[in-house]
């Protein structure tokens, strides 16, 4: 069954809201698009519509958190993570437990560059205490929302709007800091998260057995020892992301490789230092070479298969 990741997020939050009365929701006139509307309908008293005022929303969420609540503040990733100084001072500096949910990361479609966030991970990574998670499938999204609701830390959730067919096994377990190998390979490894991971899986399935896949949904923190151990069996590594190649998953892997002097061949594949254009999501995927077919070609060349 296809379920968009944002829908899985919205539905799971309602489930959790029934048990956990500390969960509250804050919206900036985008609750329908972010699927926070499910929570608003079910728990109107614990839901706050701030209007088109993201800075105010960040402060309100921080105040709610410091009053003992667990706010989920959702908006388009590009808009909400653009409020850097507000998140930095009101949330991060106070080390308060706001969950910022950024939807519409990556290649979102005809609305174009202003609404498509391809810088949010880079921006959020540098903020102290923040954890960053980008779930890759509906199943993982549910687990990540559970984790986020129970935690007291500031968290940035990058929630895709894409429909993703479930590809993770039923016994899959998300663990913060420990990206998991969802397919073992020999020498060759693909690292990705979010909706692009499912495209990577399709591409790898066409190529064959000797390519491994690492689900990098836990973007920050990363247990370095775990990554070093995982990378040990691989020589050729490619990171794939619907995000700028500056400051995203590729950068994280490059840092670990350089810091630990690992002898690896690394390719960082993502959005070049630019904004993305308008078009249908599938045309955009092809244009930026993030669709399964383009990925298959890129993998074949890089892995020399």
């Amino acid at each position, binding site marked *: 069954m296809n379920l968009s990741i944002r829908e899985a997020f919205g539905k799971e939050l309602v489930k959790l809201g029934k048990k956990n009365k500390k969960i*509250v929701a804050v919206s900036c006139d985008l609750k329908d698009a972010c699927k926070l509307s499910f929570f608003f309908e079910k728990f109107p*008293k*614990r839901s*706050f519509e*701030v*209007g088109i*005022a993201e*800075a*105010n*929303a*960040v*402060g*309100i*969420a*921080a*105040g*709610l*958190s*410091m*009053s*003992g*609540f667990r706010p989920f503040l959702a908006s388009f990733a590009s808009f909400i993570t653009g409020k850097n*100084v*507000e998140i*930095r*001072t*009101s949330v991060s*500096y*106070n*080390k308060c437990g706001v969950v910022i949910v950024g939807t519409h990361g990556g290649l979102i479609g005809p609305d174009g560059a202003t609404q498509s966030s391809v810088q949010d991970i880079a921006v959020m990574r540098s903020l102290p205490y923040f954890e960053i998670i980008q779930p890759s499938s509906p199943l993982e999204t549910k687990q990540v929302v559970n984790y986020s609701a129970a935690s007291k830390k500031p968290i940035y959730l990058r929630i895709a709007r894409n429909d993703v067919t479930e590809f993770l096994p039923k016994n899959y377990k998300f663990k913060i800091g420990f990206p998991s190998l969802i397919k073992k390979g020999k020498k060759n490894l693909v690292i990705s998260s979010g909706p692009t991971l499912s495209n990577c899986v399709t591409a790898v399935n066409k190529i064959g057995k000797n390519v491994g896949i690492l689900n990098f949904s836990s973007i920050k923190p990363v247990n370095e020892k775990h990554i070093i151990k995982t990378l040990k069996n691989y020589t050729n590594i490619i990171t794939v992301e619907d995000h700028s190649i500056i400051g995203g998953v590729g950068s994280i892997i490059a840092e670990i490789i350089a810091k630990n002097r690992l002898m690896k061949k690394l390719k960082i594949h993502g959005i070049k230092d630019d904004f993305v254009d308008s078009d249908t999501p599938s045309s955009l995927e092809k244009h930026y070479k993030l669709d399964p077919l383009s990925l298959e070609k890129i993998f074949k060349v890089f892995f020399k298969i």
Partner: protein
Amino acid sequence: MTDNNAKLCCRNIRKKILFSIYHARSGHIGPSLSVVELIYLILKLGVNFKKKDRNKFILSKGHAAPAFYAVLDELNLLKKNELKSLRKINSRLQGHPDKKKLNLVDTGSGALGQGLSISIGYTLGSRLLNTKNKIFCLLGDGEIQEGQIWEAAMYIGAHNLKNIITFIDGNKFQNERSIDETLPEKNLINKWKSFGFQTISIDGHSIPSIEKIIKLFLKNKYKKPLLVYCNTIKGKGVSFMENNNKYHSVKDLSEEYYKKAILELN
């Protein structure tokens, strides 16, 4: 509270501000001296730090941290000699308030414009918990140039959030120059009125005026969210610092001038 007693306390607080900034060798003197009476009375009358679930004080103009710390010291809420540690590594008294280090701080601040939104969050939280806490928010008159203040004002007015009281420290100056030279405030009071606030203008150094408003606010006597515009003097209490923006943020206050200032306050 007797007026004379409060006056004496405020004089002590001013001396403590200068003492801590003199030892730190830097800090915002002018905008700290302008808010002494306000912070002292807010904390003395409105915030009981010993209670677990209590009213909150949001110092949105975080650069007035030395005034906040000096008031805490005057109320015996700091450690002995702690004021000397202002702006130092591992001190609870960071250059701008840090909630992680000092748990009497209700929000960290320093990047301007954010405190009023935090106040909303606190009051919404209190409403859900049914605790009816009061939130005291102190803004600078330069600070209200930040757009977020007006996002928050719009929200407070729209939802008639009467448990927040907003004070503006109207000292007429900002970082570089006067407000008038930077961005004149046209019809400031009417702006707040139009957002749904009841507005009052007072002398921000008048103990009886501030005391009266705080007491009425605590008794829920105001029917709308309250904006108190406080006419204050930047650098208040030391003649050569008053209305002298050289003392907005001071580096290395000399011993001579420090002693001169203390002498005036004595």
